[in-house]
């Protein structure tokens, strides 16, 4: 064993350890100081916002104050004040910041090599983005880092660009369930501008899985213009599509929905029937009380329970129907009625959200 080499290794290690200990203690001190400075910086920036809102700070004073702060601090405050300041004053603030050097400086991050810097630019655009930023947004939409692509999605709410909406729908269709759920929420926030895109896609759709996803999106959007498209698929050959229809219709309290759900209560697949019962209860389809009462005798236990819960949700008439079933004896309907009538309110609400709620995840598993 080379004694000198070992001695050198040990000496190096000892030195390194001492340095590390120094770093550790120093780091702790620096962090404490940084925390202090961060608090000061936040209060300076916050004060600048307050003074500008109160009209006691000039445009230049405000811009100078935020210019001296880290982008993250200003972004947090912008997020905070976005829900406090509204109307013309907010538009004025946006215009003022957009014209400043600070805005140009931060948006340059969008072209950075480092994804976390591009993320800062995305966060800025999600509050201050406008149509003129479209080339930048479009570029970030195709970013190579998933985190940036995910973060840029809400920016679409600030710009009305049909091509990007179309890309977003395409992304949702090809995504895994979790990402799809997230994109659905973003699309739902875009509202009416998505409807023509979905309509066009439904027309072109050839696979049941894709159709099911699009129908689910219609439900998420609450797009009543497309209710006919949903009910029109209640007899689709794919059970996955029919289950989606049964689920989506809970978002549309409309006689047309109640009719379609009543017909789905005689579907050959038990899961579809159970979901139809749930949805019928949720939209309050009182006129379909009789079909729900019939469903209390269904061969599937889940259908019976969900039909019972739906009846309970329908109010006095539904409760009376349940009591009638209970008086009828110890048959299937009587047992289901007893079970449902004994449920306390929290357990009842638990059935609503959890039994068949995870549509996006279950879609595709039936056929």
């Amino acid at each position: 064993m080379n004694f000198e080499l070992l001695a050198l290794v040990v000496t190096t290690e000892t030195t390194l350890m001492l340095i590390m200990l120094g770093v550790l203690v120093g780091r702790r001190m620096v962090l404490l100081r940084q925390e202090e400075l961060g608090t000061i910086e936040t209060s300076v920036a916050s004060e600048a916002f307050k003074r500008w809102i109160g009209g006691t700070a000039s445009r230049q004073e405000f811009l100078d104050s935020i210019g001296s702060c880290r982008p993250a601090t200003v972004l947090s405050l912008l997020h905070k004040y976005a829900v406090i300041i509204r109307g013309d004053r907010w538009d004025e603030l946006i215009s003022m910041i957009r014209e400043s050097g600070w805005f140009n400086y931060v948006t340059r991050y969008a072209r950075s090599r480092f994804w976390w810097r591009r993320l800062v630019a995305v966060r800025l655009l999600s509050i201050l983005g406008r149509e003129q930023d479209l080339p930048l947004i479009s570029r970030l939409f195709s970013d190579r880092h998933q985190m940036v692509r995910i973060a840029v999605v809400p920016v679409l709410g600030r710009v009305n660009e049909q091509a990007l909406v179309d890309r977003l729908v395409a992304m949702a269709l090809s995504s895994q369930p979790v990402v799809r759920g997230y994109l659905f929420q973003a699309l739902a926030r875009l509202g009416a501008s998505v409807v023509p895109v979905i309509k066009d896609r439904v027309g072109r759709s050839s696979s049941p899985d894709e159709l099911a996803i699009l129908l689910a999106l219609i439900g998420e959007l609450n797009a009543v213009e497309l209710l006919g498209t949903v009910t029109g698929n209640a007899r689709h050959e794919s059970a996955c599509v029919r289950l989606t229809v049964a689920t989506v219709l809970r978002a549309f309290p409309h006689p047309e929905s109640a009719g379609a759900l009543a017909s789905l209560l005689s579907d050959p697949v038990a899961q579809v029937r159970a979901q139809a019962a749930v949805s019928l209860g949720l939209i309050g389809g009182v006129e379909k009380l009789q079909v729900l009462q019939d469903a209390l005798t269904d061969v599937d236990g889940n259908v019976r329970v969900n039909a019972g819960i739906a009846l309970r949700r329908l109010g006095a008439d539904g409760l009376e129907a349940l009591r009638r079933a209970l008086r009828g004896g110890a048959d299937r309907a009587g047992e289901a009625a007893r079970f449902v009538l004994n449920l306390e309110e929290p357990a009842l609400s638990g059935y609503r959200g959890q039994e068949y709620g995870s549509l996006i995840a279950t879609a595709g598993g039936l056929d």
Partner: protein
Amino acid sequence: MDLLREALVQSESLILTYFVILNSFYALLLFLSVPELWKHWQIIKDDDLARYLGSEALPAVSVMVPAYNMEASIVDSVECLLALKYSNHEVIVVNDGSTDQTMELLREAFSLYEVSPESRSTLGTKRVRAYYRSRNRPGIVVIDKDNGGKADALNAALAVARFPLVVAVDADTLIEPDALIRLARPFLLDPDVAAAGGTIRIANGCDMRHQRIVEPRVPHSFLAGMQVPEYLRAFLFGRLGWNVLGGTLIVSGAFGIFRRDYLLEIGGYRTGNVVEDMDLIVRLHKHLREKGVRYSVPFIPDPVAWTEVPSDLTTLGRQRERWHRGLVLTMASNWRMVFNPRYGVVGLVVFPFFFFGELLAPLIEIVGLIATAVGFYLGVVDLQAALLFLTAAWGYGMIITLTAVIMEESTFRTYRSFADFLRLVGYALAEPFGYRQMTVLWRVDAFRCALRGRHSWGDMKRRGFSHAGADA
């Protein structure tokens, strides 16, 4: 005698080579884990993402909780799990044939009523006595079954889980309120995630209120305290480094999330295994590689679960012996994967590392110490050189541990008080002097137990969370 001398000299060279290669690999892991932690830190800092993650876009999750004789804490634990910040989750509690009041307490606290069998898959488990739901709380399912061990209980839960993602949680583990949201994050950022693990931290000594950690503390108790830097090293530096290499082999059984369909494909948890978490991940890797599925099993540093660690020598020894015995048995039953290119990075890098670097490490360390002692006696080894070598080896270990502490301090800085910080550094420096040698002996003992065919967990004495804080 000359032969012995020659053998000693040769073994010394071999051990030195082993030392250099192993530590170079540790250095590589360290090198890789720093940017990985940085990446996660940047994501964690994004407030917007936190808001998106709080939304209903998240996938529904089934939380599986096996419970055996947990009467002291089961109701509080289930309450905490039900109260987790997550938009759509159910809690499946499995009473695994408890002989105490666990089932009665659950029945009473949650006003349980029996429901028809809910099994949705064909995982074979011990006899299930009954399934229950709650009259007063939504989202809870209780399974009462004959005792079959943790893996069997988890299989029973897996069979009735309704949601596409399942989380395995120990009933005596405290989950931070937002940990489930954080744990689900990789499923949004990477479509190929098959499973993900979070960080386990030590609850001993922490200030606790209503089954929540309100002030993380470094325990005063020597044994519990020594495990704090050890856990930091294992999670922050080890597993993050493996993230980059694509080969995490351990998702902690106390807190991990899995795609349910994949678990069903591999037949769920294997009963009779003493480290069901490692066995599960190894089989998952094997299955997905053989199927040619693109997948990843990342470790996520910010979802935190707190667990009570052993604070007496006997229990700690049993735990470490069991962990290493589990590694021995897992390696033995999957030895065909070692250096097998069919399993990609798992077969070519991860398995060989776990075999040579983890499995054999305590044996080599013991052999090295004995050889040095014998060599010194025979005059083959120079005492100064031997001591220097030991110092170099221990020094390297200390540097690795200190690096993990620096990573923790630069990011999460869980332990806020300066006294805790100093205690943490103190434990990190003290580890090589006695504690490390004890763990080596327990790990060596694992080989003996494995050879004797021992498959039991051993009695794990825990003081319970009501006492864990008293360690401080």
